[in-house]
């Protein structure tokens, strides 16, 4: 038996129409959504404190569900999603309402909770930081969030209990895809070999279009057909966890050995020891076989027993970043940008800005690769000057935008500038990591 699992999102801001296409034409047993980044929970906690109307889950939950539910209902496709952020029960309740809008009242919908850790609990656990080896108390700034990466087990339990939709808070990304494999193929949570292979497939799926031709095209080197029409991936998973990665027909993009390999090592450090809550994955034994157009079989991924710990992500308010830009064009653009930099650096001294770090870049010259950028061989026709500073207080960060405003009339000739149209200050929430004993977390399943 082969289980067909499709991806529905790779992050909060991802496109929605490829999810709808996967639901409609993917003939899927499961559709899985990954919508969280490292800082999602901390940002959600900060927003929840300030904005009582914020529901605490994926702000695109309604859009995503409405796009896929008709086809999922029609096909009987089950949904696994981490759109619950800091309120999985709220998200599951909303999903139940959206099902009812489509005339479905008998589908069981479950929320998986238990990833959020209170501050008291965090300090009581006595964990040390992976970044510094120091204690939790050494984190500078106010801690605003702490949550553990849960694994596939509670999701699988919810599915086994009959859930048609499972919505979680923080879980490891591959676990979202692994859980359906465990249920359909009857794998135990201690079957390291199959869980390793299955998690490896989950890792290929978790970034959506990054395995089907997204984040890939390089004209003349790696050409991709119709890159405006990318599909999200589908995994056809066999009982041993090996799978064919493919996509819906008549879409753009590509699934080939190259897209598979780039994604296999994406955000991986030691490829022989990729640690998830479920297993330690070994990619070094992977076998990649071309099985026809946009069909690639991936097998041979290894697995070792899961660790005794779970990773906890901790968010702390550290300060602010102020940022703005203005621009030059035509003959002498670079020289005018260089004079503008000099003016700003002198003015920052005059106003005695209190910044931990100030960075002034020239877009088109050195803004992305910084110090390693080559000196331009010819004068750039256009240069944008970008100014950013990290500060302790919001009022210091606001000074960046104020001094850029001044460049409009008190700066260099031919300075182009936007009228400020958005907040030019953002909050810095530093992310820290720690390991805690697995037994310290108790995942719970709630049917809504």
């Amino acid at each position, binding site marked *: 038996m082969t289980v067909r699992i499709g991806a529905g999102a790779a992050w909060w801001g991802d496109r929605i129409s490829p999810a709808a296409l996967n639901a409609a034409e993917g003939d899927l047993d499961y559709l899985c959504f990954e919508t969280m980044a*490292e800082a999602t929970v901390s940002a959600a906690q900060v927003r929840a404190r300030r904005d009582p109307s914020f529901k605490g889950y994926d702000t695109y939950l309604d859009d995503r569900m409405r796009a896929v539910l008709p086809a999922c209902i029609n096909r009987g496709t089950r949904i696994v999603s981490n759109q619950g952020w800091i309120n999985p029960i709220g998200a599951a309740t909303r999903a139940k309402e959206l099902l009812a809008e489509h005339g479905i009242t008998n589908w069981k919908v479950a929320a998986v909770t238990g990833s959020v850790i209170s501050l008291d609990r965090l300090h009581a656990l006595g964990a040390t930081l992976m970044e510094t080896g120091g204690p939790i108390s050494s984190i500078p700034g106010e801690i605003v969030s702490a949550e553990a990466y849960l694994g596939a087990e509670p999701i699988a339990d919810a599915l086994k209990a009959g859930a048609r939709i499972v919505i979680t808070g923080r879980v490891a990304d591959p676990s979202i895809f692994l859980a359906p494999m465990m249920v359909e193929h009857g794998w135990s949570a201690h079957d390291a070999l199959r869980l390793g292979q299955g998690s490896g497939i989950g890792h290929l799926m978790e970034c959506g279009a990054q395995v089907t031709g997204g984040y890939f095209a*390089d004209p003349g080197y790696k050409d991709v057909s119709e890159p405006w029409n990318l599909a999200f991936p589908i995994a056809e998973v066999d009982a041993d966890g090996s799978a064919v990665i493919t996509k819906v027909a008549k879409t753009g993009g590509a699934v080939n050995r190259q897209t598979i390999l780039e994604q296999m090592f994406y955000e991986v*450090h030691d490829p022989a020891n990729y640690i998830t809550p479920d297993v330690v994955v070994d990619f*070094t034994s992977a076998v990649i076989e071309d099985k026809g157009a946009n069909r690639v079989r991936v097998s041979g991924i290894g697995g070792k027993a899961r660790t005794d710990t779970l990773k906890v992500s901790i968010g702390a308010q550290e300060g602010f*970043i102020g940022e703005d830009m203005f621009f030059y064009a035509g003959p002498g653009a670079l020289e005018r940008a260089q004079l503008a930099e000099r003016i700003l650096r002198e003015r920052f001294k005059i106003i005695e800005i209190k910044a931990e770090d100030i960075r002034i870049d020239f*877009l088109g010259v050195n803004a992305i690769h910084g110090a390693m950028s080559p000196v331009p061989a010819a004068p750039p026709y256009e240069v944008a000057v*970008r100014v950013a500073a990290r500060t302790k207080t919001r009022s210091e960060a606001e000074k960046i935008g104020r001094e850029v405003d001044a460049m409009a009339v008190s700066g260099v000739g031919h300075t182009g500038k936007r009228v400020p149209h958005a907040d030019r200050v953002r909050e810095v929430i530093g*992310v820290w990591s720690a390991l805690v004993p697995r037994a310290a977390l108790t995942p719970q399943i709630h049917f809504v």
Partner: protein
Amino acid sequence: MRVPLRALAHTRSGDKGDISNIVVVAYEPEFYAALAEQLTPARVKAHFKGVINGAVERYEVPRLGVLNFVAHGALGGGVSRSLCLDNYGKALGAAMLSVEIEIPDAWSPRLRGANQGR
């Protein structure tokens, strides 16, 4: 002859905290040995001078034609703290492509992109 890495391999970068990993994938299995010999951690660290501020580790997966570089202190203190416009380091993988690699002239027809047939 010497060619940019871009003629021999493709790359992708990913972030975790203040660490960027850059995977280098040889277009052909035969290219791998030259990459493994010349694309050392020290060479990569020197190439990224002023951008990678910590250690560079390298993991080798010869059977897949893959070198995975793990660069510490490469993301300005971490994605949320970084003052770099590209705070995730998504474009760092492209910076690797300009490293020059010495190869046999006979490989010329097999090079990718603009270097083919050089």
